């Protein structure tokens, strides 16, 4: 009887462990960058300068909140990208490109190209022309 109880406990613990690994390790959700606290808060220009100095800038792979006046807002398929441009290169404008979460697409359409905006998102790095910020959310005071 005791052995049966122990066996049962082992089976239950095994099932719980397997469920934990399945749900919280193997199928763990992607990080919610909208809710995440930013690791770096700075101007888009400063972020761009840091990457121009080194592709391994401290913002790389971090949650970053940037502020600046956008030069353009691009629409491509279902993606909306807010562009902070600081120089011209072979690929046209170069600077920081922030792709927004789809829920902000409508709001992005109302952004002014004269006012400062703040965008928080995941900085995936520098591709030689632009700093890329993804899963961006518009930050309001």
């Amino acid at each position, binding site marked *: 009887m005791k052995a049966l109880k122990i066996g049962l406990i082992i089976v239950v613990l095994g099932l719980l462990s397997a469920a934990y690994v399945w749900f919280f390790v193997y199928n763990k959700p992607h990080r919610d960058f909208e809710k995440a606290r930013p690791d770096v808060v700075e101007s888009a220009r400063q972020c761009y300068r840091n990457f121009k100095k080194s592709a391994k800038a401290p913002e790389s792979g971090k949650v970053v909140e940037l502020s600046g006046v956008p030069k353009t807002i691009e629409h491509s398929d279902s*993606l909306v990208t807010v562009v902070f441009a600081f120089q011209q290169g072979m690929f046209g404008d170069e600077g920081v490109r922030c792709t927004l979460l789809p829920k902000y697409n409508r709001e992005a359409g109302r952004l002014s190209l004269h006012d400062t905006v703040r965008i928080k998102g995941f900085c995936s790095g520098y591709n030689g022309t632009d700093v*890329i910020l993804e899963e961006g959310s518009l930050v309001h005071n």
Partner: protein
Amino acid sequence: MKKIIFFTFILLAAQVVSAQRYMTKTGKVSFYSDAPLEKIEAVNHQVNCAIDTHSGFFVVKILMRSFVFEKALMQEHFNEEYVESDKYPNAFFKGKITNLKEIDFSRPGTYPAVIEGEMALHGKTNKMIAKGTFTVSKEGVRVQGKFPLKIADYGISVPGAVTGKIAEVMQIRTDLFLKPLK
């Protein structure tokens, strides 16, 4: 009258020159592999690509950390253990369109294209021939292609425990819509 003709010529010439280069910064590249252990699929919507229609120069630049996987754990493993995105943040393809004469960038239509060049990934560079199609329209050029990529050729090793269960060849798909560079 001469002035009008001269300025018309300059304007037309400027248009021709501007249409020599096409580019995108929001190209799509995805890869897919189906193996016994795991089906792996990821997509990147932040791909840079440029074409010079005069010389046939073709370049693609891919920020590795912008690949998005369905599973967060898979994305972590891809960046940290396989392609080492911190160490090698970008992949490049630089090449030339070898059948440039067969593609009329001034006439809408779909043209087969062959591009020969070099692919750099994970610190290794290999020669490569990619085949695809160029669809020319008034708005720009859509570049679509599909080719296999053997990960061992780029020094990407699969951990011993899962060797044979993860495909050694990835199928790469490109869908890049390039607009004339103004």
